[in-house]
């Protein structure tokens, strides 16, 4: 199982501010294993998509240069309380993970 995705959503008027932390090693293929001295094979997320109530609002294509355990923040206009925001990713090995969360009331 891939590492979990954590999401935090804050609604201000009709804009949902979404902060996402994705557990992923994002290996560049250039890093040497400290013990074996061997290069750790490339392993990185290539594509991430974000949805609002199932409709795609953001699509990101990534390289190995996105930092380990990627952080992604974006904003969706027209969001309401209880709307569902989804995140899904797929990496260069075809592994995937997804998560969803509902928009909480403004605090």
């Amino acid at each position, binding site marked *: 199982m891939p590492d979990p995705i954590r999401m935090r959503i804050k609604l201000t008027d009709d804009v949902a501010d979404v902060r996402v932390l994705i557990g992923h090693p994002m290996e560049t293929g250039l890093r040497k294993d400290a013990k074996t001295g061997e290069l750790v094979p490339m392993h990185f997320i290539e594509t991430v*998509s974000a949805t609002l109530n199932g409709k795609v609002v953001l699509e990101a*294509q990534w390289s190995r240069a996105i930092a380990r355990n990627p952080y992604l923040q974006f904003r969706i206009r027209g969001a309401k309380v209880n709307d569902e925001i989804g995140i899904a990713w797929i990496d260069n090995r075809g592994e995937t993970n997804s998560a969803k969360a509902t928009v909480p009331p403004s605090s």
Partner: protein
Amino acid sequence: MSWTTSISTKPRRAMNRLRRLLLKTATIGASAALAYAALAPLKVFAALWPAAAFEAKTIEEALKAAGVIDPVTCEGIAIKAPEIAENGAQVPVEITSQLPGTRSIYIFVDKNPQPLAGTFEFREGAEPFVSTRIKMGESSILRVVVNSDGKFCMATREVKVTIGGCGE
């Protein structure tokens, strides 16, 4: 990995994976179904991963391969990034575009082994804003390109890196 192999094998692999995931989650109910809904469009995008642009080794080649045509330096792109990044493995970058009709944002690091770090495409509803963290191998120009209605606008920032982050 060549361009052709990445096209021919990846969607199939992703498809099988998604099929397994669907079978596994079918009994869990509505929440699993929604997670699957988020994954469905993903496999389409994954097939479009622009390998040539990501593997280009110079900024000129990367811009060209990413389809950035005649970029002009313009106002209206705000880049928030540290002047000095102590850790090149985690460099925060925040971009806000005020250009009307912003469709996508590209992040390039001129001196990285492969300059294109990522692209972000905004659909209806998404604000032209993104914040993430990138790796920088050494001090470099950070180059942000915005595609607004097919026109390419560019802004740059210089980021000094104390400890490079490419081996991370």
